[in-house]
């Protein structure tokens, strides 16, 4: 199933985070529980894990960019799944 992964809130005071380093590139397969992105905040560095098996179809935030919590970071879906619905949701 196609899913949008958003910038998680990690800890009580986090308002935004930096997509510090993508460990997977677009088109690469990911497994549930596998780290896909390193996130840094004022306080800490944390790892974002995929919560499902699939393909990292689209990266929406480039490395080094700081975005508020809940900003869409990427889309994970099956290899040939239509992700236009997800992209439209993000546009809104």
């Amino acid at each position, binding site marked *: 199933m196609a899913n949008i992964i*958003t910038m*998680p*809130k*990690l800890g*009580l005071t986090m308002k935004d985070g930096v997509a510090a380093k993508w460990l997977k590139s677009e088109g690469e397969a990911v497994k549930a529980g596998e780290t896909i992105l390193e996130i840094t905040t004022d306080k*800490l*560095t944390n790892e974002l894990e995929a919560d499902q098996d699939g393909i990292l179809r689209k990266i929406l935030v480039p490395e080094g960019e700081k975005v508020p919590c*809940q900003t869409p970071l990427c889309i994970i879906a099956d290899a040939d799944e239509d992700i236009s619905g997800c992209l439209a949701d993000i546009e809104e």
Partner: protein
Amino acid sequence: MLEKEKVQSLYETMLKIRLFEARVSKCFAKGQVQGFVHLCIGQEATAAGVCANLNQGDYISSTHRGHGHIISKGADIKTMMAELFGKESGYCHGKGGSMHISDTSIGILGANGIVGGGFNLAAGAALACQMKKSGNIVVCFFGDGSSNEGSWHEAMNISSVWKLPILFVCENNLYGISSRVDRSMAVKNVADRAVAYGMKSTVAYGNDVTVVYETAKEAVEYVRSGNGPMLVEYKTYRQHGHFEGEPDVYRSPEEIREWLDQDPIKNCEALIKEKDILTGEERSMLQEKIESEINEAVRFAEESQFPPAALAVKDVYTDIVEEGRVDR
């Protein structure tokens, strides 16, 4: 060997805790949870196994990692979830969050945001049970780290001197926040310290719910029979960070892997399979049933209102008119 129905009910409680906590983890990442949460994923067996030996009139005092204890003592997960979301329909009308959930009608004296804050409340409740001769007991849950607090030693001491009906249950998950136990404690077991207070104690494996249930059963009977307090220490492990979002860089991947392999739910599922207690289909039906209860709880929390600003300080301060002060 426990009867099948007992294993099944312990499994159901553990699964409810696991699925509740897993959902809270997701809701926290989505920004829906209003305060800090410390999840007990990996420690379900101690909560479920101990509380299965208690009556409704018995009391528990809990910790900052309290959802498992509270669910096992019979709390309503809708009201719990609403509290985590900061909503008026929650246990503390949305003003307490994860670490203040309490329900005295079923003996839950409260989770506690203060490490070591539950000991003297538990001892006080045990004194009340003793004076009222109610036959009820108190289970005081605590972690390894808090046994270094002065309040723990005070409560251990007075409970033993007064032979209070209290069972101290240590969930030793090997870390007090990021400090490994051997960096903050010179003895091997928390239970070793009970000797200093003339209190009976035992150490057991905390990731097998049948072991927890059996050892707790014996301990609860000992305390309920008027022998005074006892301490049981369970060795266990939390699978998430100290709080949600914590990077957890102080534990080695090997150690984490080793304990993931001893997951209490997997351990119980292996037993269920071996003894043919539930079929695969019955197990997935049970999971679906719990999932739908949790979906309902999240929906209830989402749809509930935040408390109105006018009530911001209601229930927060007291007029101090409790017994003993009224006439002065």
